[in-house]
């Protein structure tokens, strides 16, 4: 078993645990590379099926290429797709900086969707290497009744025994990609030939390394037009992955505040 085989096996194990132990389960699909990998892993775990709904929390501000991608692969992969809209920015905590405020719409949209469908488990494609706050996450991470994350007092989690019993009114976030790195994702995309949105590939010397809302996401300088080139670029880069995501670095604690309030 090589490194990717081990990651795949671990993620499949996590997805099967979630499916066995959580009644009302849904997977978040942001249309980015990570959640595409996650859907792919679910099809591996469940032998071609995705036995729970796949939910897109739509801010309405994604790139047109992303919507086209969504509609094509939802049909091709036979997904039970749920589209949930985000409330307008006026409903969001006004003390947050502007870009974070925009991102926080997604938190609200998710919270509303969880309440509407009664989900008790949400599978999300976050990774430890993305952001130092996400590095603190558990694989099965309990959320309070308002969706908030108490990172100061997390339950122990070891030997692949996950905390899956929860008080009513709360839900679990499940993170099957937590141990993956950005490079692992791209190598797996390459090995498995998993489709991704074209925006990741360079055009005119620019490409998107991370995809979010079009008004708060910016491309990086790059000539990587193929998967091989992206992998080579990432092997040597020392720039952080979310450098193009404005919301992370407006203030020192912006991302931490977003996460504690229930952001992915």
């Amino acid at each position, binding site marked *: 078993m090589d490194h990717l*085989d081990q990651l795949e*096996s671990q993620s499949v194990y996590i997805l099967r645990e979630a499916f066995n132990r959580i009644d009302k389960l849904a997977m978040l699909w942001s249309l980015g590379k990570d959640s595409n990998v996650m859907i792919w892993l679910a099809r591996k*775990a469940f*032998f071609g099926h995705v036995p729970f709904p796949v939910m897109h929390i739509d801010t309405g501000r994604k790139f047109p290429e992303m919507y086209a991608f969504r509609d094509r692969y939802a049909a091709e992969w036979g997904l039970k797709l749920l589209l949930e809209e985000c409330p307008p920015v006026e409903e969001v905590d006004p003390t947050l900086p502007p870009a974070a405020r925009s991102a926080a719409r997604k938190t609200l949209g998710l919270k509303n969707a969880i309440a509407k469908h009664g989900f008790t488990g949400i599978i999300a494609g976050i990774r430890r290497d993305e952001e130092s706050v996400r590095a603190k996450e558990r694989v099965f991470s309990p959320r309070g009744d308002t969706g908030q994350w108490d*990172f100061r007092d997390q339950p*122990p989690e*070891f030997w692949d025994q996950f905390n899956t019993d929860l008080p009513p009114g709360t839900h679990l976030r499940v993170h099957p990609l937590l141990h993956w790195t950005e490079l692992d994702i791209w190598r797996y995309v390459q090995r498995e030939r998993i489709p991704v949105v074209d925006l990741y590939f360079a055009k005119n010397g620019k490409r998107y390394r991370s995809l979010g809302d079009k008004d708060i996401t910016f491309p990086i300088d790059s000539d990587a037009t193929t998967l*091989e080139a992206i992998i080579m670029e990432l092997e040597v880069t020392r720039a952080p992955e979310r450098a193009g995501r404005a919301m992370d670095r407006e203030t020192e604690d912006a991302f931490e505040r977003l996460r504690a309030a229930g952001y992915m």
Partner: protein
Amino acid sequence: MSSRTAAITDSIREQLRIVIVGHVDHGKSTLVGRLFHDTGSLPDGKLEAIKAMCERRGMPFEWAFLMDAFQSERDQGITIDTAQIWFKTRKRDYVIIDAPGHREFIKNMITGAASAEAAVLLIDAAHGVQQQSRLHGFLLHLLGIRQLAVLVNKMDTVDFSAARFTAIRREFTDYLQGIGVTANYFIPISARGGDNIVERSPAMAWYEGPTVIEALDSFQPTRRPTDLPLRLPIQDVYKFDERRILVGRIESGRLMVGDKLLFSPSNKTARVATIESWNATGPVIEAHAGQSIGITLDEQLFLERGEIASLETDPPIETNVFRGRLFWLGREPLQVGNAYQLRLATREVRVTVQAIERVFDADDLSAKPAVEVPRHGVAEVILRSLPLLALDEGRHIARTGRFVLSDGTNIVAGGIVDMEGYPDQRELVTKRSRNIYKVEHRVSAQARAERNGHRGGVLWFTGLSGAGKSTLAMAVEQELFRKGYHVYVLDGDNVRYGLNANLGFSPDDRSENIRRVGEVAALFADAGMIVVTAFISPYRADRQRAREAAKGNLHEIYVEADIETCEQRDPKGLYKKARLGEIPEFTGISAPYEPPESPELVVDTRVLSVEESVAKIVDYVEKNFSLLKVNRGETH
């Protein structure tokens, strides 16, 4: 899953997961910051961002800030949770798990350390070995981490003294030896100054061993246990289409299409028909440890999550009682009689704490008996479940020999299985000949009882050696006989001369000894007699089986005396021999005794004389077995 190594670029590097532990303030986060910087693994701008943040807040720069990314942690100055980050050496990539040293956050330290392949334990050169240093060393051992480098940090604060380093090394080596651990390296360092991290320290020319990086690079990645017996815990059963697929991860060994699998504890068998996969390049015929797989069987068996599949030749142990060496994380202490949810591989079952054998003192590692295990305590406890469990010795197959306990919604303990002194119960439930048909007697139990004037039944004496079982049994027999009862004693030593002459004193043999006695006693009782058995019968499961053999007509009589009293009496000189090590697995000394939970009668021989004890038992028999209204003694 198929491995398509050919399609992957050759740039995938080896990875090793290490955990850094040690007492709070002994410099873990500083070491991590230093490792990152000195190996050139920091992202651009990270160091500058933190230096700028320090300036904004008017505080001096600390290497530890790299690790403590949370604002709240910067405010408190301690690492709250386990965080994972990556650094690279020429040889390979490292995932470092920084485990908090603060006592309150032990659960996070365990969460981080449990997934590590090697550990680094820091000791402050000036403060020396502290309680948390010892506890962390012990926990690493329980978590099964076998590669360890001990770093004596802050050598700059003791003038890089070789003598100080040697003293700490000696003290900690002695401690580790006591728990069966050997450290691979002791390295004197100064994390703040970068001494002996990547570069050798000119200030410590007396030190000739490896640097931290050299030590880390010498550790081996954990190898998947493909050579151990097959263990495939069933995680789920899927029926998405016409296939009925059993899924799970192979925890050890390997499996091939056509293999005959034994499922425990249900003891069903079937052959592997297919190994299922999706998006694989061709049919899969073999799978091995570490792989999450799905299989179909050649027979439709009803199997549930929690069963463990193995080959018939080397199955797991089946038992409903075992010893767990565990660490306790619950807010409330663990106490005898408490019930918890046990999770072992994918099995989940209710267990009761039958006994706390000993609690380890983290300071001097002495083991003491105790009535409860405090938060963050380490102890050996006896756990019992109603149904049979399939499990392994922790030291034999780690992944099916360890467990967690949960209480309500959270995990409160983790531990490893130790079956020493407890028998495998598998044969007792499986070895039954199939071609046996019961023949009905024409004489009813009622008719026998009416002729005898009393019902038949078993008086099952249990208790430690020297508690008085044989003495009382013979006296009770004599008295009941005098009163006209049909009565006979089956005594431990007597039975071993004949019926059980082929059995020794191993846990398995003792268990079989009791099984035979239980069956013979049941036949005597069925024949209408009162049979008194006088056997230590230390295991509750064995006595339960005897009770089942007697179809409920068994009366458990606990002949009670504590070990000190029995050892003092020592009528056969056995305790003396056991203490000298001449008798292995002697109940009460080197093998467990499980007292009855709800015996029909307790006779405490510390308080009652032989005459009083006999009277109490005879009185019980008169009340429960006699068909005559008046006491026999007066009518004869």
